């Protein structure tokens, strides 16, 4: 088969949608005014910012005053957790999260532990799902915050956020969800979800990098994490990233408008990819839940081989993907998500994440399916683990 260029790492980032790029461009050097100023060119920026805020609020079912523009997912998660925790300290010091959160949440929790907060890291089942009953049992009279991601970035498992929102209702506990991976695949109505805070990042839904959204429900305890000018109603200082916000809003509108067709496209390709690989490679596991997963996520573990080696081989053939192996991170540990799901450590090292997107075609999927058996076979031929297992 002829070599192709195939991007299957849409959970890492996505290309900017042409319409998003087009919408942004005038705000760099034509309509460049600072939205806080009063003259004409600034009023154009202010108008763009106000329009964007209104559109985002409409999509989330929120009020415009509840939308904070940020620099992305990590800032949103940091601000949500620290902002709530420090503002609620007089009420309690207990936080509940899950063991499969993104590091932007987990490492922020570790940070808060240094300041006297106690954190419960809920386990997950073999599919990577948090049990709402277990969450309910973890609540104490000191619990101030619950943070559970809407969908996992590695295995794509979708969490029962609305159910957790219901059980927290009337409990005076702040509920945050990291919805970074969910945008464009799942409905984001904050009232249906029952959340106080929700984090989004533009570059995951075909918007630009370096810009995001934090939904902050009215009357939620919150201590601003960035001091300076009075932007974002004193909740996030700094001159607004107007081009980024405009581009993000265009991308979000498109993602929401085309949610169903995009999900159909991705689901169809995902099923083709999974069926193709499971049918052509032995000793492979499909990690995560069959149906409660993001339409674009495929996570596989190949026994006896290591993930980075698979990635390097795929890269040589023009395919961009990702792995949960320790070798692709800065630590020696393989993916904390796969470990929390009870996947044996040596098998977690052999994981491969392929995340589909708008540009992918059946030909792309068939190309990847055609490559993997040879790559895995070649690596297994030199693996002492495969030799041991064969004995």
């Amino acid at each position, binding site marked *: 088969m002829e070599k192709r260029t195939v991007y299957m790492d849409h959970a890492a980032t996505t290309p900017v949608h042409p319409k998003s790029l087009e919408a942004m461009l005038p705000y760099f050097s034509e309509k460049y005014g600072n939205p806080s100023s009063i003259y004409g060119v600034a009023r154009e920026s202010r108008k763009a910012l106000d329009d964007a805020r209104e559109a985002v609020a409409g999509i989330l079912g929120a009020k415009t005053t509840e939308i904070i523009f940020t620099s992305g997912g990590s800032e949103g998660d940091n601000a949500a957790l620290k902002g709530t925790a420090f503002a609620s300290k007089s009420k309690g010091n207990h936080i509940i999260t899950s063991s499969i959160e993104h590091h932007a949440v987990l490492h922020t929790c570790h940070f808060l532990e240094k300041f006297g907060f106690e954190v419960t890291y809920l386990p997950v089942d073999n599919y990577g799902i948090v049990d709402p009953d277990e969450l309910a049992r973890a609540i104490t009279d000191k619990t101030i915050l619950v943070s559970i991601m809407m969908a996992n970035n590695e295995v794509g498992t979708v969490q029962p956020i609305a159910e957790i929102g219901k059980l927290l209702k009337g409990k005076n506990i702040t509920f945050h969800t990291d919805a970074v991976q969910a945008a464009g695949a799942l409905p984001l109505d904050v009232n249906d979800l029952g959340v106080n805070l929700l984090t989004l990042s533009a570059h995951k839904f075909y918007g630009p990098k370096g810009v995001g959204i934090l939904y902050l429900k009215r009357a939620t305890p919150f201590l601003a994490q960035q001091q300076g000018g009075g932007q974002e109603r004193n909740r996030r200082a700094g001159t607004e990233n107007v081009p980024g916000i405009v581009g993000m809003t265009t991308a979000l509108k498109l993602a929401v408008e085309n949610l169903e067709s995009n999900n159909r496209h991705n689901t169809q390709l995902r099923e083709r990819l999974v069926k193709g690989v499971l049918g052509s490679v032995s000793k492979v596991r499909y990690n995560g839940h069959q149906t409660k997963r993001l339409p674009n996520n495929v996570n596989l573990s190949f026994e006896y081989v290591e993930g980075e*080696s698979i990635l390097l081989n795929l890269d040589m053939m023009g395919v961009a993907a990702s792995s949960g192996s320790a070798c692709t991170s800065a630590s*020696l540990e393989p993916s904390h998500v796969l470990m929390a799901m009870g996947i044996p450590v*040596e098998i977690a090292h052999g994981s491969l994440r392929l995340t589909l997107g708008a540009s992918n075609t059946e030909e792309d999927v068939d190309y990847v399916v055609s490559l993997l058996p040879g790559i895995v076979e070649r690596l297994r031929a030199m693996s002492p683990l495969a030799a041991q297992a064969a004995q």
Partner: protein
Amino acid sequence: MYSELVMDHFSNPRNVGTIADADGVGTVGNPVCGDLMKIFIKVKDEHIEDIKFQTFGCGAAIATSSMVTEMVKGKTLEEAEAVSNKAVAEALGGLPPQKMHCSNLAADGVHEAIKDYRSKVAGKVE
């Protein structure tokens, strides 16, 4: 992230395989850490006459295994014992810093194989 030479050894590893009647076998690493190397040597007149490896691991683990087999093949045991993990990494034109401590074990594997050979020889003498 990897040099061309590393990628060359990764894509076309030298001396992959096993030696059924090996004189020494060295195993280093641990699948739990994501790297496991097995080195097989055939020794004649205190020289490494033949060497093969099997490796489970990342690009650096496979490339260093391949490189060390080239570096010590035909050498005396003493010369092979003097080859360090660092020398293997240098011969490959360097490795990314995070790979230096976890995946750069191939020379240790050779040393273990030589140790295994020596202990077998000692056993025979007694």
